[in-house]
């Protein structure tokens, strides 16, 4: 029991007075996140709401270990993410954290299936039949063999969501993940995400321009 508790404490992300190096002072003052101590624990649903240009994507990239242009510290497993080596970052991304990028970042020339498999094979959480199930669930089952560049932006957004769900994680970062989806597909995608996060007892950290009505967060933070 104590072990589980310790593991739980270790596997949280703590932001210690994090401030992007380029952000204006007035935005920092208004923010509930910048220059504060904030803890993200597994199994929670966190919604981050902010208008354009206030640093949503920057925060998601900081948490994912993609950028280091901030002051303060982001601590995971007792270590600062900024101090991770390239290979440590890879381990972190394989096991602990997954992401849906705002700009999707798919392999345009490869098929949808190749885009999904390249992530799944890295550290498989599901077997490959689950890919077809998920694709069918989100309405892109017939696109698996098509090159990604031939899919619409909405379809590509669903590919990016399914890709993020192919690995184990304690934290799932979603950066405006439904911006190009209609309401039906948004709800389906949200349901799939919540189901997958619950199966892993993982946190969802969703950043968007405004609160999403069919997402019931445990905590909402305004940047």
């Amino acid at each position, binding site marked *: 029991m104590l072990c589980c508790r310790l593991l739980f404490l270790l596997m949280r992300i703590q932001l210690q007075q994090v401030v992007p190096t380029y952000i204006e002072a007035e935005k920092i003052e208004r923010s509930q996140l910048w220059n504060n101590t904030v803890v993200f624990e597994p199994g929670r649903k966190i919604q981050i709401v902010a208008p354009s240009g206030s640093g949503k994507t920057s925060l998601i990239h900081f948490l994912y270990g*993609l950028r280091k242009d901030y002051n303060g510290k982001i601590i995971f497993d007792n270590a600062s993410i900024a101090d991770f080596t*390239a*290979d440590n970052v*890879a*381990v*972190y*991304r*394989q096991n602990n954290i997954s992401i849906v990028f705002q700009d999707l*970042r798919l*392999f345009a020339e*490869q098929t949808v299936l*190749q885009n999904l*498999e*390249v*992530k799944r*094979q*890295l*550290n498989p959480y599901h077997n490959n039949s689950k890919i077809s199930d998920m694709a069918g669930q989100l309405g892109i089952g017939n696109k698996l063999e098509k090159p990604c560049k031939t899919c619409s932006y909405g379809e590509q957004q669903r590919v990016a969501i399914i*890709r993020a769900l192919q*690995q184990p994680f304690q934290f799932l970062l979603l950066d405006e993940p439904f911006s190009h989806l209609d309401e039906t597909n948004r709800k389906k995608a949200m349901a799939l995400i919540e189901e997958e996060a619950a199966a892993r007892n993982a946190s969802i950290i969703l950043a968007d321009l405004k609160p999403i009505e069919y997402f019931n967060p445990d905590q909402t933070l305004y940047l």
Partner: protein
Amino acid sequence: MALSFKHIAPFLHKENNKASRLLSYFGLGIGVLLLLCAVQLYININVLLKNKSPKKEGYDFIAVTKDITDDNIAGDHTFSAEDLAGLKQQPFIDGMAPLIGNKFMIDANGGKMLPFSTDFFTEAIDNSFLDTLPPSFQWKPGDAVIPIIVSSDYFEIYNTLFAPSRDLPQFSESTISSVFIQLDCYGNGFKDSYKGQVVALSDRINTVLVPEDFLEWANKKYGNVSVFNPSRVYIKTKDANNPDLLQYLGQHHFHVNKDKTKFGRVKQVLQAIVSGLAGFGVLVIVLAMVLFSFYLQLMIAKSRENLQLMLMLGYAPQWLSKTVIKNWIPVYVTIVAVAVAVTAALQWSFKEMVMKGKDELSSMIDWSVFAIAALLLVISVWINYRLVKKLLYRL
């Protein structure tokens, strides 16, 4: 199924620049073949030219003098203390002893049995340089008999040329010791007569040898000299054909019997040719490696976006570097294995067709060729791994 190169292959622009990749494989194969053949040839030369000079107790003993040429004929041709120290210091010289000559007059006559009279000379050398050393080969002041060791060549000349022309008796190796020659030594106001007795013949040293103790004593008494520079030095070496030895002797204008070292000179030339071949092989390998590195750099540059995205998704640069390079290991192993096989076939053909009957030469390639092939393989893979790793960590 474990993650492997085939999973990431679709994301790499591997088929670009195929010509330079294939050319680099070909170049690497030729380079490795040249280098391995050069190594095997080097070994063959050493095997074939080994023991080409008569060795005693594993050593060659060679007389060294200073070159006497038209230009330096009037100069000093003795070995200075510096020359002797230099010789002693060389790693390929295992021992050195000067030959001391007589610095006084000696007349020799054979008495009634051998009616001849002649000016005579003797030399002395450290006993450890003698191939035959009978117990009687020693002298102390007061002894009337001086033991002598004569060169076998001189003995043969006496028996085959001198004795028949002068109607003198011939001797066998055992009967020569029964002959006493009268040696009159004089100089510095002294004149004494001794009996010279041939106690042994030497195949090694071409001179008339007397005990060192006698010559040192007699030089002082009749020649009034105790220290002087020798004009002939014997050196003891494990290999008279060692190119380093020949180079050293040549550089210092020391003269040796060419016959004793002729294989060394052949070896020197052959080794130079083989070294050139090996150098060319290394050059070709380096060029092939450079060409292959261009191919790898181009592949990574063209796949840059995909590789960056893979790293972003959680692929470790270390794993990617290893996996990319592992993909080429079978190609490298094949290239080196083919080069080893061709070298082995050439060695077999050389032994069986050109050097048939030379049992000292093996028809198999030497283990060192395998070792060098394995080393080349490791170096090639390692260099490319380092290159890919460096490029990926920079992404």
